[in-house]
């Protein structure tokens, strides 16, 4: 800011001190241990430096000393909100590496599970965004009421609510029994009614609109050049959804649309997530209706279920990516023929979407920085790896 002093015959500019505060690791709304070193002038933010690494477990080093299946449970702990899509990405990377064929029913089950996690993630993100805005826990608890039903399905299918460890290279561990499919269909029938109630509570709420509109605007070119992906990118109007771009697994069989915002502010990111939930419901209905019978594990990989250590993919490298609810989740696996990967790298959407956090927050108020961070939707397990 140009320091032009406005002197009323010597009164001089009223210079107030800038205040440097740490919205630090222990802070009610940083979604985990994440610090922002913020310099304030009054209430407006002058500079904001994110500080990360508090939850760094060196997941990639662990994977390099582990068998391929051994690091599958560790991928659950990357973005602990949607463990199924983390497994999905890792399984696809190793299947591409060892070119393993996955039977159709397994593809359908994987897509059903991935879309269910998308519902869980988007609902919780909106709940927590409202929590940062100050609504005292009510939206979060409405969101968690729906999340509980879906987590019960995961528990019934995979054995654990959040740490599912359900996918294996070449298919899935257990099959979906007809009752489970019926229960999923039941949830899909009730979800739209819940979304209506959620929207009447929030979308036209004047305070939410006041707080979220034109705050943290992300222009489209900056989004593309900062390799931002996921709902945050689509809220800025860039039409890029990896389910449509790569057509991985069997996504081209399902008819669904990709919602795009226009302004790319916090309100658009909030509303694009609600529209995406509606599209996921469409995919789920089609998938649950058309799921074919058949086995759930490719013949080649069944023996390796019993002894994961002697699964040795051929030498080579593979990079597979999945449209995780937070953005593009990519796995880069290099194998040197032994039972342990030579190099294992996770392209974490939360980590890369944060690059432009400072650009979004400069000039905004402290309260806006918190909700911008909430709308970017980061999870520290994936960010720090």
């Amino acid at each position, binding site marked *: 800011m140009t320091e032009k002093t406005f002197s009323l015959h010597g009164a001089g500019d009223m210079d107030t001190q800038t205040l440097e505060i740490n919205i630090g690791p222990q802070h009610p709304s940083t979604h985990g241990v994440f610090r922002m070193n913020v310099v304030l002038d009054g209430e407006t933010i002058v500079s904001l430096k994110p500080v990360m690494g508090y939850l760094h477990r060196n997941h*990639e080093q662990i994977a390099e000393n582990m068998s391929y299946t051994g690091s599958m449970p560790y991928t659950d702990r990357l973005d602990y909100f949607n463990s199924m899509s983390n497994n999905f990405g890792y399984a696809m990377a190793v299947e591409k590496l060892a070119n393993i064929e996955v039977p159709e029913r397994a593809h359908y089950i994987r897509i059903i599970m991935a879309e269910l996690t998308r519902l869980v993630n988007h609902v919780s993100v909106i709940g927590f965004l409202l929590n940062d805005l100050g609504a005292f826990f009510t939206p979060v608890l409405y969101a968690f009421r729906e999340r509980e039903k879906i987590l019960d399905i995961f528990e019934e299918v995979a054995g654990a609510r959040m740490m599912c460890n359900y996918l294996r290279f070449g298919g899935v561990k257990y099959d979906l029994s007809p009752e489970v499919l019926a229960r999923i269909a039941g949830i899909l029938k009730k979800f739209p009614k819940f979304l209506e109630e959620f929207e009447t509570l929030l979308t036209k709420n004047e305070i939410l609109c006041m707080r979220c509109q034109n705050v943290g605007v992300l222009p489209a070119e900056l989004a593309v050049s*900062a390799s931002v992906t996921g709902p945050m990118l689509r809220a800025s109007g860039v039409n890029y959804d990896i389910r449509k771009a790569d057509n991985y697994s069997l996504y081209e069989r399902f008819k669904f649309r990709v919602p795009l915002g226009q302004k790319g502010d916090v309100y658009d990111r909030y509303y694009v997530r609600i529209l995406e939930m509606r599209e996921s419901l469409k995919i789920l209905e089609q998938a649950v209706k058309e799921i074919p019978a058949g086995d759930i594990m490719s013949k080649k990989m069944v023996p390796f279920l019993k002894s994961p250590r002697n699964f040795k993919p051929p030498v080579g490298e593979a990079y597979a990516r999945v449209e995780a609810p937070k953005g*593009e989740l990519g796995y880069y696996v290099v194998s040197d023929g032994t039972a342990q990967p030579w190099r294992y790298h996770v*392209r974490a959407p939360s980590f890369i979407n944060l690059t432009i956090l400072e650009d979004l927050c400069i000039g905004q108020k402290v309260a806006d920085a918190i909700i911008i961070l909430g709308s970017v939707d980061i999870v520290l397990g994936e960010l720090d*790896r």
Partner: protein
Amino acid sequence: MLSTADLKTKIEAAIPGTTLKLVRESLLLENPNDLLKVARFLKESDLGLDYLSSVTGADYLTYLESVYHFYSMAQKSGPVVLRVRTDRQNPQIPSLTALYRGAEFQEREAYDMYGIVYEGHPDLRRVFMWEGFEGWPMRKDYQQEDSETLEMADVAWLENQGVKVPEPIKAKAEELEKQGKRALAQKPGQPEPQ
């Protein structure tokens, strides 16, 4: 989508003097210095690779490598994989942050984990490890410090914090100091490092 072979010829035609090598359907750039030129060409040419999905460091014992995955959001076209190699002593690779803002954090992570210095990076600092951390954790020859046995530096630090360090531990620290060895943790299954 062009196959990697004719992509190689296309780039070499467009930018004279760069030599590319085909490595398992990815392009290895011989000389790291003209990475910026190639990347600019990839971005502005009709290929339209405007989206740098991921930058990954890797350690292949004799050299360090930085792997770039380019995609095109406009044409929704598949990955173009570019690799650049540097030696392990002082790894130098030009930074792509000027062209692709998204590379900023990923290059910092590669620097933090492998020690690859990216020239031209706005603020190349460690992103996960704390400032005072020495060594590059993801390198294959990285030896982890054993947290149980204290070294002389730790004993000294504890003392001036007013902590009374028990005798046996201090003796072990001095003995380690005399032998000039670092207290290293054994990797599971590996013999005691000499």
